[in-house]
Structures are given as C-alpha cells and as structure tokens.
C-alpha cells in the first residue's frame, strides 16, 4: 500500500489534547526529493503534526508513513531514516560540536568507518568545521542552529524535518540557513519537510501546505497558490487620496483602500492597469507600484485574516482595537 515515490504519506491524522482537537484529520503526500513547506500561524497544529510524523506523539486516529515506515508500528525504522531540527535547541552546551556529533553518530549507529568523513562533510556544509573543537555554549544562536542542521544530517536521513529552523534568527542568518538547505538539496538525495510561519520563506519550497486551526486549507506550489489568489496589488502615490479613491470607484468600478499610506487596489493584470490609470484617473499621480500576490495574500484569501492577526488570536490587534475605541 505504500508508494515508494512518497517520503511522507498521511491519512486522516488526528491528535487531541483533552477537549482540544489540535490536528483535525489531515491528509498529506510529500514526494521523495521535494522541499515541502508547512505553513501556518503559531498554534495551527504544525508542530503537533511534525511530532506525530517523527514518532514523538501517538496519533489518536489516522496513519502516517514516513520514509516508507509506519510512524506508530515501525517507530525505530522511522527514527533511523529521519533527521530532526527542532524549534528549541537540543544541543549539549558543555560538549564541543564534535562531541555532540559523535554522540549522535553513535546513538544512530552510523558505522565508525564513515563517521569522520561524514562529520567533516556536514560541518563544512554549515561552515562550522573550523569551530568543531569549541564548546557549543560559546556558539551564537545562528551557529547553534547550523550545528543542529549538521547533526540532523549526520546519519544521512532520507527525510529531514526542520521545525521553524529560522525562528528567532536575524535576517542575514535566516538567509544563510536557507542557502545551506538549498546546497544540501543539490548534494544529497533527500526530502525536506520544513515548517515556518514566515511567509517569505515558504517561497523556497517546491510545494506548500497551509495549515490553520488543525486543518490543511491549501496545498500546491507557491506559484499556483499565488495564481489562485489572482489579483495583483497596485499602489498609487497621490496628493489627494480621497479624490483618487472616488475616481477609481467612478471610472474603474474599483474599491480602493489606504494601506501603508498609499491608495491600494486589487486588480487582475496589474501591469496593463497602470497605463490606463494614468490616462483615465484624472487625479495627478506621483508614483505607482505593482505587486504580485504574496503568500501573505494567499493566507489572507484562504483564512480571511493575515497570519499576524491569526497569531494574535484571530481578532484585530488589541492596541488597534483600543485606539479605535477612542474615536
């Protein structure tokens, strides 16, 4: 029943914590060799799902096969074939990087003969080979994360799970983490399953699943997801915003709003709209920008809320609400 071309095969997976249904019956196929992005706000059920795939949590219903093995009945086989990088660090700061890796190699039964070579390969990949003799507690946050990625790869897993690998890192380090992941894809025959709640990062994935409130609400390539949202966002810089909004309503039948200080409208085919708006608006325009839909827009269109608002508890920002109450 298991298909060899699938790295992860999930059917009707459910997990409850007391009365709360954290994962509400999800289906998911991840192809061998792809980078699969798992997207959603904090609390959507991403980590719970990953924990079940990694055999750390027992599902209440449904099944999951990872790297060809059942996550419940063939636990150790799954564990040997996956690499894990958690949100929170799981390194021993009192050991050196090399000792941390040796511990891992032994625990996973990596043959002694290949350990030195393998260790060098993964440490060089993340640029920590020179620092292998330092105690991990002397590492920066970004270095620790890189070391965790190296460790997750040490036993040559078929699937690498990265749970929020860039959370809490500065933008430069975040970019470098993604660079390592891409290099890794070029070098090894590996499937990558990565969760994130940074929409921009999901662009790195071949396919994306968006999870919200325990369910998968969309699953496709980033391009297809964005195309499904359709409209481009056009922003106009004008001196008289009210006149521009009125003119857009009259002449183009478009409802414009003010976002980030600019008059903003959603249209099909943004580039073609630009010359028309200059010709026909009748209000002086000082500047214009056209933006393709982002994954933020995708998330917005599927859930009716932005990912930041979803994390704040579904409603508008409490500070904004308070300010609104003063009017």
């Amino acid at each position, binding site marked *: 029943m298991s298909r060899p071309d699938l790295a992860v095969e999930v059917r009707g997976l459910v997990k409850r914590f007391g009365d709360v249904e954290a994962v509400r019956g999800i289906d998911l196929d991840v192809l061998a060799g792809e980078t699969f992005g798992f997207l959603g706000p904090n609390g959507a059920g991403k980590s719970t799902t990953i924990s079940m795939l*990694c*055999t*750390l949590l027992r599902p209440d219903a449904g099944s999951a096969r990872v790297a060809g093995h059942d996550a419940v009945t063939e*636990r*150790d*086989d799954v*564990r*040997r074939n996956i690499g*894990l990088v*958690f949100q*929170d*660090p*799981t*390194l*021993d*700061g*009192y*050991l050196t990087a090399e*000792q941390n890796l040796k*511990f*891992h190699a*032994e*625990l*996973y*039964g*990596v*043959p002694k003969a*290949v350990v030195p*070579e*393998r260790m060098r*390969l993964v440490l060089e990949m993340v640029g920590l080979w020179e620092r292998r003799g330092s105690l991990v507690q002397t590492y920066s946050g970004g270095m620790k994360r890189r070391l965790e990625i190296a460790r997750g790869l040490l*036993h*040559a897993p078929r699937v690498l799970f990265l749970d929020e690998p860039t959370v809490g890192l500065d933008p430069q380090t975040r970019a470098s983490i993604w660079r390592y992941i891409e290099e890794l894809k070029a*070098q*090894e*025959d590996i499937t990558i399953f990565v969760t994130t709640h940074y929409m921009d990062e999901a662009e790195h994935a071949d396919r994306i699943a968006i999870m919200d409130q325990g369910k998968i609400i969309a699953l496709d390539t980033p391009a297809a997801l964005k195309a499904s949202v359709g409209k481009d966002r056009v922003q106009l810089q004008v001196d008289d915003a009210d006149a521009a909004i009125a003119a857009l309503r009259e002449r183009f039948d478009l409802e414009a709003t003010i976002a980030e200080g600019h008059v903003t409208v959603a249209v099909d085919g943004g580039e073609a709209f630009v010359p028309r708006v200059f010709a026909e608006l009748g209000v002086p325009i000082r500047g214009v920008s056209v933006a393709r839909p982002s994954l933020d827009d995708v998330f917005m269109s599927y859930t009716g809320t932005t990912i930041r608002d979803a994390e704040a508890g579904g409603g508008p920002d409490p500070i904004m609400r308070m300010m609104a109450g003063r009017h």
Partner: protein
Amino acid sequence: MAATTTRPAAAPPVRVVVAPAGWRADLRGVKVVWQRELIRFWRDRLRIVTSLLQPLIFLFVLGGGLANIASGGTEGVDLRTFMFPGALAMAVFFTAMFSAASVVWDREYGFLREMLVAPVRRGSIVLGKCIGGATVASFQGLIVMALAPLVHVPYSAAMVLEVLALQLLLAFMMTAFGVMFAVRVTQMQAFMALMQMVVTPLLFISGALFPLSGLPGWLAVLNRLDPLTYAVNPLREAVFAGLDLTPAAKAALLPGITWFGWQVPIALQVGVVVAFAIAMLSIAIAQFKRA
C-alpha cells in the same frame, strides 16, 4: 542498475547505512550516555569540589567538633574513624544526586529530546545515566577513601575493593532513585528542594553518622525501612574489618542490622540494596517511557 543518475564528482555523498535496531543499538545507547556523563563530570570541576566538600565538612568539622562529647560512647574509637564510612557513603550520595539532576537540566536545555528521539530503547538511556552516575560517584568515593590514614583507618586491598564495589552499588541505586523523580520534575529548583527533603532524612536515618545500637524504637523501625541502611552498614563492616576493636567497642559501634531480633547477614544486606536498585531502575525506566 547502470548509469541511473549522474552526480557532480566534486562532492560524492558518503553512503551511510546505519545499523539496525536491536540489543547492539541499545548497548551503544548505554555506552554513549555513560561516556557523556563522564565528559560532563570531568568538565565540571566545581561540581567535583562541591560534592566533596560536604562529606569533608561532616567528617572533620562535625566529627572533630563532637569528638570530645562523644568520646564516652565510642569506647575509645575516634569519632572521625567511626564516621568515615558515613563520609564514604555521603560522597557517593551527593554526586549520584547531581547526576540524576542532570536529567532535569537536560530537559530544560533540550538535550533530553535528542536522546528521546534516537532509535534506541529509552531503558538504555536510563541505564546509561545510572551507570554514568555510579562511575562518577565512585570516583568521588575514591578521593574520600584516600583520606583514610587521616582518620586512623589502615588500607588493605580487600577494604578498598569492597568499599569500591559497595560505593558503585550505592551510587547506582541513588542515581536510579534520583532519575525516578527527575523524570517527573521539570524545574531544577523543585528537584533540588525535593531531594533535600527526601535525601537528608534518608541519610540521617541510615545510621551513616551514628551507631545502630540503642536507638529509640521508632528510629530503629525507620532505620530498617531505609534502603541506605543496607549500604551503609556493609561499608562500615568493610572499613572496620581492618581496625583492632575491643569486643565492647564492636558491640557498641557495629551491632549489625537485626530484623525482629534476627541478625541480617551482610550478603542479604547487599542483596537488599541490589533489589532496591533494580526496583528503582525499573520505575525510572517506566517513568522515562512515558516522558
């Protein structure tokens, strides 16, 4: 399978076929966890010093201070000599507790997860911890044992070996005892407070610091229930074997353990410790599996 895919020759991936599950994998698990305990212990010099300090304070400060008023009851034996086996037990005791505490620490800093997701049985991780705790604690015990001449205890090969074996066993039991709690407690402060609350009474009641003769009835009962009693008494027997004691001193200081008037043989006392150790290890493993 000819020429399926071509790879850049610059970075040929190392083919890794990891070992299958089974007792070998579990044995490796025991070994790496044990090794890590040793590395950690060696790095933590402060811990080596602090856990030695306590038995030394008891031996020389308390023992030295009370020697005069206690001299009437020790039949001519120096109180420090009498307390020496107790100090040997203490050295092991506190170090073993620290080893168990590292489970709490590992959880707090996340390393526990690295062990929990590994393809080895959780029992092997607990066993590795306990053997590691026993090893480092016995090392501490050896340092205290080196002080024997200062308290008029002569060395003999038999004494050193017996004491070492008993210390290993005691340390193993105490690490298992500590891990049993440590799996459930998520905060270091809470664990330390709990251990203070449990361990100090166990230590006092065990007779590490006083002879078992002429105890009040309730204390005698508690003493027989304390698993430590059955490790401390054989330790004392081993140390005192090399001393030249008068029959009166032997009767006062080394009355042995009795159950309802029956003299419990040393082998059975050690057997009790082994039984406790296995029971505690089993409970610790069961707790760990649920963690």
